[in-house]
């Protein structure tokens, strides 16, 4: 009987690609950890909301973070490079990290997202997030006034 540390899981993306990952690495995703602890004995764990593009990245991140030989400084450098992706991919990874309940990845990606937002105007934020402005002109003026007059 192989010890749990050596056990390998098969993770299947929404587009049916299969990825082999050590269990000890994969359980950084609490969703997966729960499945394993509940005694899930499927051949492959289907991740219905994560496509292969995102899953490949997530596994890359998981393996870096599970590696006990990487220092904090190395992880920081890795993070800096890792988040250099088109913004839509950043958002995609956030949603995937949320679905998989992967706190470390969630923090890194949300921080990266916030850092981008800090550089943008309100209009740019709306554009990048594909959000319709539902304020009337009056309402927006009132919020701006309250923000700048009271809370800044």
């Amino acid at each position, binding site marked *: 009987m192989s010890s749990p540390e050596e056990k390998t899981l098969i993770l299947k993306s929404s587009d049916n690609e299969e990825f082999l990952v050590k269990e000890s690495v994969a359980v950084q995703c609490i969703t997966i950890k729960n499945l394993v602890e509940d005694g899930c004995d499927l051949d492959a764990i289907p991740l219905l909301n994560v496509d292969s593009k995102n899953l490949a990245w997530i596994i890359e991140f998981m393996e870096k973070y599970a590696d006990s030989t990487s220092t904090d400084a190395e992880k920081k450098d890795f993070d800096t490079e890792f988040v250099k992706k088109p913004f839509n991919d950043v*958002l995609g990874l956030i*949603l995937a990290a949320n679905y998989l309940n992967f706190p470390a990845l969630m923090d890194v990606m949300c921080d990266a997202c*916030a850092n981008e937002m800090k550089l943008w105007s309100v209009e740019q934020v709306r554009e990048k997030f*594909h*959000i319709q402005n539902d*304020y009337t002109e009056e309402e927006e003026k009132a919020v701006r006034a309250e923000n700048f007059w009271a809370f800044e």
Partner: protein
Amino acid sequence: MINYFPEEVLEHVFSFLTSHRDRNAVSLVCKSWYNVERFSRGKVFIGNCYAISPERLISRFPRVRSLTLKGKPHFADFNLVLHDWGGYVYPWIEAMAKGCTNLEELRLKRMLVSDASLELIAKSFPNFKSLVLVSCEGFTTDGLAAIASNCRFLRELDLQENEVEDPRGQWLSCFPDSCTSLASLNFACLKGEVNLAALERLVARCRNLKSLRLNHAVPPDVLQKILARAPQLVDLGAGSFVHDPESETYNKLKNVMQKCTSIRSLSGFLDVNARCLPAIYPICINLTSLNLSYAPGIYSKELVKLIRKCKKLQCLWILDTIGDKGLRVVASACKELQELRVFKSDPNDVGNAAITEEGLVAISAGCPNLNSLLYFCRQMTNTALITVAKNCPNFIRFRLCTLDPITPDAVTMQPLDNGFGAIVQSCKGLKRLSVSGLLTDQVFLYIGMYAEQLETLSIAFAGNSDKGMVYVLNGCKKLKKLEIRDSPFGNMALLADTGKYETMRSLWMSSCKVTFGACKSLAEKMPRLNVEIINEGDEMEGGSDDRQNVEKMYLYRTLVGPRKDAPDSVWTL
């Protein structure tokens, strides 16, 4: 895809946006973002407590955990604002005690804080952790006793420059034995005695104590015992440092100081025997911040010996007793200096040469990282300011104060317009500026032209005509606070661009040439400004003459109309 961004995910992204500016921006994106943001904003900053009401604060940010409030205008520091002008914190506490009991942190500046307010805080907020009071008044140590007794998780009690009545002196004993959470305690501004045994016991049981600033009533032998118990301190404000350097106590103090290798910030020395200073020599090399502005007993020679050892200093506050010579030593020893404040010492201390432009030039040449300056000096020259501007283009705060407010260039006897012009032209990131010396409208032309990031401007005894003020109002697009005293600006300037005041936090004008009539007409035109006239005498009772000059005017934008707590001597037009 983005429509599927669940609220908790959005909240998680927002949690990395900590500045109020960023959070304000996010609230404007759309209504659902406004709501997610407002329920998750924990830290709120209110720069003028009369710009909004406590009720509106709570209704917008019901989960506020940390609140910063500012009350009186800055010139209150120079005794230009009546004690009871306003800035009462009680209504804010009362409202939050009803609607927002999560409050953990309260930071107040220039507010009136009663003992009743402190007692209400102590009673109403079970998770209260941090109280920071800067330049506040209205409370006694009884109020502090209430905080000490009841706030079980208190982490920080920081009193800076407050006027506090100290009738009983037992507040320190009110920290229960179960209180072990204190990380920061600053009572340097208290005038009265403290229970020294209680202090020692408190320090001994608060293993997380990192910052401790004592008042003058704590003698060196107690300091020595405290340091022995708290070698983990990072920030120390010594109280009294007067002792016989031949004594056993002094020896013990010297030994224990050597072990305090974590101390990075040193202040206090409210009473000091300069011969005792060698006790702190061992820790000088680690210091990044040194404040000796309350230590008048240290003469230039000892000061210089001390500072020579502080090679890592980034922030230095001293008195002008250091002299130009001493500043040259700072320039050669403290290469990493970023902030320098040189305060004026007691004018009755004869033998103080005060400082001149030479000291400043030396500092600018030696300390390339300098970005923040407060400099009280006897004289200044344009050449010096131009040199400083060239050497240090990174100034964010530049406040100059000549002892004679209208002193000209000491060499050429010309106004100092060009010198300040060089500063604003070179320092593209300048946010705060105080000008001083003989100055004409020309300096304001330069400020309006070049000071693009300027947010706060202080003017005293400067300018020739309305044009000066108009240059500033027209040019400085990011201006938030303008405070003017004793300058010949009048109605034309005040009324030139009334819309501008809605883009600023406040305007203060005292001993200028604005008349009652002009202030009235401004108030009529701009209903969203509170235009307050502060009258100390009773010249303007009932029917006032529109043509009469107003002694003090303070106006500010507000969302909640005229305030109801103004004393009789303050009129809102």
